């Protein structure tokens, strides 16, 4: 089971109401390489992966939910005071027509989240390589958003999240090595 904790993993601050940045950030909420995809991908892979890496998938998958909450907080704070006109100007008119200022699992282009963003091949090496690629893609997305943002408070939180992707990628690479060593040992004996 999971237990919710009433706190953010890292403090989230935003400078001003800025629905345009929120529109870009939604990519990390309901996009292919976003935090929802990450959490669901890792937690789902746990059931068929060798025992050596179940703990890692559980812990990283759980941390991704903390990141999802940080992104939600950023989007919420960037849009909560936005008027219908400001939403429209920011390219969120279609979103507003359907959802008002509510959050929705969609990407920056407004495409709803779909399970086809994530994979489960059952082959541990294939699954872990997908995880490494997902972390690198998420890191790149954070970088592109930071490049477009002029909000230093928001960027502080985004840089924290970008660094977490680097750590996750590193841990998944180590998990691949652990499984390869295990496979080689089984061949020798």
């Amino acid at each position, binding site marked *: 089971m999971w237990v919710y904790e009433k706190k953010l993993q890292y403090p989230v601050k935003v400078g001003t109401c800025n629905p345009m940045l929120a529109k870009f950030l939604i990519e990390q909420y309901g996009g292919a390489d976003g935090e929802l995809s990450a959490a669901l991908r890792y937690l789902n892979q746990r059931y068929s992966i060798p025992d050596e890496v179940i703990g890692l998938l559980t812990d990283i998958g759980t941390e991704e939910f903390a990141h999802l909450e940080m992104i939600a907080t950023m989007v919420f704070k960037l849009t909560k005071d936005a008027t219908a006109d400001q939403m429209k100007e920011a390219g969120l008119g279609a979103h507003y027509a359907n959802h008002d200022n509510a959050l929705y699992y969609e990407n920056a282009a407004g495409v709803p989240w779909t399970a086809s963003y994530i994979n489960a091949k059952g082959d541990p090496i294939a699954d872990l390589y997908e995880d490494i690629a997902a972390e690198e893609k998420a890191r790149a997305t954070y970088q592109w958003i930071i490049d477009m943002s002029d909000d230093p408070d928001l960027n502080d939180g985004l840089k924290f999240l970008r660094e977490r992707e680097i750590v996750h990628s590193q*841990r998944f690479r180590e998990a691949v090595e652990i499984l390869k060593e295990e496979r080689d040992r089984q061949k020798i004996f």
Partner: protein
Amino acid sequence: MSQKQLPKEFYPLMEELQVVDFVLVELTLYLDTHPNDTAAIQQFNEAAYYRHQLVPQVEQYLGPLQQFGNSYSGYPWNWNEAPWPWQL
């Protein structure tokens, strides 16, 4: 939407909890792939001990940090009292 204002003493304590939790999540993921690192395990247990001391201090201002019996409730039931994390 009126909500309870948290006193200024709360904020440094919450930040301290976020700091020690960062140490704990980093050590957790590291130990998941380096299970034999004694020094890291010792650091993990020290940080976990420190966290246990810190949580009641945070909860003194915030109310329950967790649910399902991991935190005690005040009277009246104060779990669903704002502010929630995104409202701070």
